[in-house]
């Protein structure tokens, strides 16, 4: 008899965990609360991925195809866990979907419930949703994914665009002190895409630090050296409306020493990643720990980042903190290995 393992969340991390397990001959139940697989990259129609600008479909599409091919994976769309009980070393779980409820026993569980984008409307200084031309990086991903890359206010190509880093991250006022890790790289990537699309459009990035860590730095160099993207050091303190249908970014050029109020015809906020409502929900439902940042807490952040504090429940992807797709996929595989070992040991 083969093992039964539950994977919660069908983003890059959960998908890869499910695919790896099915290759080991495990029966996988993949529970996804949305009606489709692929997680945030699919939801917001990411088109090209950093670091190498490969089509997102190469990665996400590939994983979805494998997961939906049948094999040992049963996907539960638009579903959630309605009841969760420990039963010795195993877990009794009720899965609820539109088709009704199903009760099953699993040998181990992988949680890959991912992240939510910070909602910039929560930080009033950025005037998100007050002015049509103030959008954020996920909106821009979606616009590019839908080939609808124009100024929302008038449907025309932008001439001068500003990226504002660290929106909803590294700010005590919004309650998020951590760095969201991907938004710098997403921003330089989008600046490149923008300049490629509209060579006449000037692109500026307002930064305090640019954290394109490791090899992501290549994109940052490319943005400056091949695409003339200009960086300006200073965090933006306020966005207001300007003349001729523009939006004004108010900040300080901390290198030149002095305030500026510069009109742009489009502003892109690099909003960060949050644990979302799903993290505390899953934490209380499964009885696993939440950390002080609102993400799920690994047993040991360095030694076993893919384990929860509870034996038999494993963690993968952005549910334990901001990270890139490659890290999420790696953790999916690590969690799969550990969930499998646990299941086999306690068979």
């Amino acid at each position, binding site marked *: 008899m083969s093992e039964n393992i539950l994977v919660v969340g069908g983003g890059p991390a959960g998908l890869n965990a499910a695919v790896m397990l099915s290759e080991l001959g495990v029966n996988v139940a993949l529970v996804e609360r949305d009606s489709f697989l692929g997680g945030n990259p699919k939801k917001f129609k990411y088109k090209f991925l950093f670091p190498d600008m490969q089509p997102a479909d190469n990665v996400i599409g590939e994983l979805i195809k494998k997961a939906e091919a049948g094999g040992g994976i049963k996907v539960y769309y638009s579903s959630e866990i309605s009841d969760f009980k420990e039963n010795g070393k195993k877990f009794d779980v009720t899965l609820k979907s539109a088709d009704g409820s199903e009760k099953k026993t699993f040998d181990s569980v992988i949680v890959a419930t991912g992240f939510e984008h910070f909602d910039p409307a929560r930080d009033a200084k950025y005037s998100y949703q*007050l*002015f049509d031309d103030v959008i954020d990086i996920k909106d821009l991903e979606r616009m590019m994914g839908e080939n609808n890359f124009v100024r929302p206010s008038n449907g025309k190509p932008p001439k001068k665009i500003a990226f504002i880093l660290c929106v909803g991250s590294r700010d005590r006022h919004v309650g998020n002190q951590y760095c969201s890790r991907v938004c710098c790289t997403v921003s330089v990537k989008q600046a490149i895409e923008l300049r490629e699309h509209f060579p006449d459009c000037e692109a500026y990035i307002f930064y305090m630090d640019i954290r394109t860590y490791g090899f992501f730095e290549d994109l940052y160099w490319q943005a400056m050296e091949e695409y003339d993207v200009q960086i300006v050091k*200073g*965090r*933006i*303190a306020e966005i207001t409306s300007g003349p001729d249908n523009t939006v004004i970014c108010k900040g300080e050029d901390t290198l030149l020493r002095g*305030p500026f109020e510069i009109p742009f015809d489009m502003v892109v906020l690099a909003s960060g990643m949050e644990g979302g409502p799903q993290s505390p929900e899953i934490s209380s439902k499964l009885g696993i720990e939440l950390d002080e940042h609102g993400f799920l807490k690994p047993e040991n952040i360095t030694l076993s980042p893919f384990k929860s504090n509870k034996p038999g429940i494993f963690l993968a992807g952005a549910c334990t903190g901001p990270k890139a797709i490659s890290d999420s996929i790696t953790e999916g595989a690590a969690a799969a290995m550990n969930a499998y070992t646990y299941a086999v040991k306690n068979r």
Partner: protein
Amino acid sequence: MALEKQEQRPAAEKGEHIVARHLIEDDSIKEEKNLVIDGVDVSGRWNTFILSRVDSEFDRSFFREIKDTVVGSRINRCWQCGMCTASCTVTPLYRRFNPRAFIYMMQLGNLKELKKYIDVAWRCVGCYKCSQRCPKQVNPAEMMEALGLVIKKYFPEEVHSKLKVDEDVKKIYDDMIIGHGRLDLAKLHTSAMQKTGRTKELLGKIERDAIFKMAKDGRAFSILRLGKPHNWSRSKEAIENYLKNLNTIENGGTGV
């Protein structure tokens, strides 16, 4: 080397022998009228010395001094993002008033640099917009108080000669701070638009839409709710009394 300093020469003639004199600040030139080194009289053009233009130390003792004050206790938090300066009420009036830069100078103990700003350093109106924005909750508004203390302590004479009441700042202070206990943002916005000749936009479509949206999602109410500080009428009375006394003293010629 024994240096026998004598009588300082007047600043106006300082460094008259230096080629490209305009490149060097007055403070960086040391020059005595008569100077004797090791018994040799080097009066004349040989006694002109230019201090190094390269900073050769960070003075942390100064940082610790500030950190020990109540108002300056969070000086170690500041990471120089510039949001305070960007939201400051005073900076647009006096570009040289720069809370972020002042905090940096204090962090590094750069008194030489701070000294150049004595005339503007005290101009904070205490609106706390910077503290409301600061992502590290440094409380820059109170750091400006720490700055005031520092300047008073280290440059008492300069403070006395350089500080003058300024009508613009006084007006903002009287109308808004004393009247409401805080700056009235709507009023500031309106006056800024008036000054830049953009009154028409106040009732333009974008502004109207924004007001409508803010009313709908509740943001407008959270701004209105800011209101006056608790029990402001009593603080207001106290400030007014204080100012009255101050005027009486000033008019009496005793100074403050």
